[in-house]
């Protein structure tokens, strides 16, 4: 029971981890990307389209599919699609200096629209009776597990029984944490987010850093959408199924205090909170609905506490949400 609960929490947490790692990278460059929910949708649908085409090209038979290709094609499509969305966002906010909140929300509208539009069109193409596309064959390649995990009991199930996208998420978060805190690139990026004018004076190419951080962040977030479809939903795409996980990923950024390594733990806590309603004994269905607000309440509490304590290392990047124009003071 408890093992199952932990595994479920991890499975639910991973899309949030991808989303928030991406958002942390973006926010470190001073861009509050509220487009993440839309970008995650686009990442998911790009991956779905990629694997749909590949499954069709292989004649829908499991034997003729190459495992490596079946994984790589959706992965690359997801990265490509979400990077494109990130590019639109960074062009508008970094080059054209548009308002970041408005641009981000428009990207979200646009991205969710794109996802549902292509999803709905694919569903119509397949002529299936269910309002969903099942890519179970591709999903089976994604969910390949370590062969000896089952032999190790509870330990194996909690730590070793997950698909590779889960481990990839943790690795990416750790790498991002390392790069941000231990390398020159990370130092420069943080400088750009804290005070772009100073960074510019120090010879850092501010616009380049903003572009790369936003696009990279979007690509990472897009993988979260893919993980949701391929691992959590077993390759079944249905419109709006991804829900508001994108917003929760943004909430997780605050919860983790802009630290990717904290986000790993945070994402699993969020996953557990999202799922707690199914495991607490004796809850009515109506109380379950109230339980679902837990992640948001916890986020607000963290937000308030950090702003009350005013610890310098717990604050958002100082120029978050402001566009940078060199000739303005």
């Amino acid at each position: 029971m408890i093992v199952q609960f932990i595994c479920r929490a991890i499975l639910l947490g991973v899309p949030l981890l991808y989303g928030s790692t991406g958002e942390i990278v973006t926010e470190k460059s001073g861009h509050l990307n509220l487009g993440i929910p839309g970008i995650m949708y686009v990442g998911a649908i790009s991956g779905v389209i990629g694997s749909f085409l590949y499954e069709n090209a292989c004649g829908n038979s499991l034997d003729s599919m190459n495992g490596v290709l079946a994984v790589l094609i959706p992965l690359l499509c997801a990265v490509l699609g979400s990077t494109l969305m990130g590019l639109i966002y960074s062009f508008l906010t970094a080059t054209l200096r548009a308002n970041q909140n408005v641009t981000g929300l428009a990207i979200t509208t646009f991205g969710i629209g794109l996802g549902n539009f292509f999803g709905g069109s694919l569903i119509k193409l397949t002529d299936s009776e269910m309002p969903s596309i099942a890519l179970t064959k591709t999903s089976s390649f994604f969910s390949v597990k370590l062969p000896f995990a089952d032999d190790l009991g509870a330990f194996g199930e909690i730590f070793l029984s997950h698909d590779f996208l889960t481990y990839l998420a943790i690795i990416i978060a750790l790498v991002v944490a390392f790069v941000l805190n231990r390398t020159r690139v990370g130092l420069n990026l943080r400088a750009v987010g804290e005070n772009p004018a100073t960074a510019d004076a120090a010879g850092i190419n501010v616009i380049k850093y903003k572009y790369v951080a936003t696009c990279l962040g979007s690509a990472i977030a897009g993988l979260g959408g893919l993980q949701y479809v391929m691992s959590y939903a077993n390759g079944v795409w249905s419109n709006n199924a991804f829900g508001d996980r994108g917003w929760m990923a943004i909430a997780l950024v605050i919860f983790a205090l802009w630290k990717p390594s904290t986000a790993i733990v945070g994402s699993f806590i969020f996953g557990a909170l999202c799922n707690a309603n199914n495991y607490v004994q004796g809850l009515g269905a109506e109380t379950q609905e109230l339980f679902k607000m837990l992640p948001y309440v916890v986020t607000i509490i963290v937000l308030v506490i950090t702003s009350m304590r005013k610890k310098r290392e717990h604050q958002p990047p100082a120029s978050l949400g402001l566009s940078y124009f060199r000739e303005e003071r």
Partner: protein
Amino acid sequence: MDNTKAVKHHHEPLVHIVKRDDMPSWKAWLIRIATIVISIFLMGCLSTMLTEKSLFETFEMMFRGVFGRIESGSTVMLWKYLQEIAILLCLALALTPAFKMKFWNCGAEGQALMGGLAAMMCMINLGQTLSYPVLLAVVIITSILAGAVWGLIPAIFKALFNTNETLFTLMMNYIATQIIAYYVYIVGGGSNIIQPVAEGNLPVIGNNRYLINIIIVAVICIFMYIYLKYSKHGYEISVVGESQNTARYIGINVKKVIIRTMVISGALCGVAGMLLVAGTDHSINTNTVGGQGFTAIMVSWLGQFNPFIMVLMTGVICFLRLGASKVADTCMLNASFADIVVGVVILCVVGCEFFIRYSVKFRHSKKEVKE
């Protein structure tokens, strides 16, 4: 900054961007309107590619979707269009004072839902006991209060601890959604549907169920214009928005202004929720506001905080939404086509602001680039 520029003089970049504030407003508006027209035209081209209908047919379909008749029944679509404008405009108007103060209230969705919830609870629980005028007054007052409280909570923390309001108000949306889900579950008895309630609805004027909403929002629109432009409060809001230090220097109590403005913002969102519940649906679910709280953020920003420009902006956006869904409906496209169209047009308009605020200059030439 000037020093670094002087040093770099011998390898000047190919293009550089200069801020300008001398563009006459008619020219700025020409650019905005041209952008809207061009982006709508582009979207028309996109839908012709998807549907294999001619461009003229596509736009004719969009117009029919907005101004035509619904096939079954006698309701003219135009009223539906005006109703959509009214709700979106009400939310955008509610956000405007907060935005003008640079308080990013992203919580219109939640504030409207709470207002709607308050109205719904009064209609269900007090519907049988109170007489109609009293009930109506109670419905209106409680929904305004509920919206105001939902806006007040983030404002207090912003004023006291400078808590990030964008994220706080965003989270409040989802808490409100879950409260609605809880309430709907209890009242609906697990069916997730509350049957429309007949008590405590707004009065129907002249046989048209949308007219009262439209009138109320029109009044709010004029009130908001006067409030922002001519009242002392409006002045204080714009000073706080421009610079909090200046505001403090000239003796404005910044905390008070933040809290007061957010109460007004939340209260108006509550009115929007009340219009939706008591004025339109007579019922509530988690999707009652349907993401319009987020669209309103964009409308308020695109409308330059001017209520009358916002009327135009909501007109354009609702036209696109209704028109594109008509196209999608007729040509068997997915309904999300409307979201794509609205998203692209807003992105274009947001992008075009750049050409109004800045000019691009090429190396060794003083000519401005044409927009």
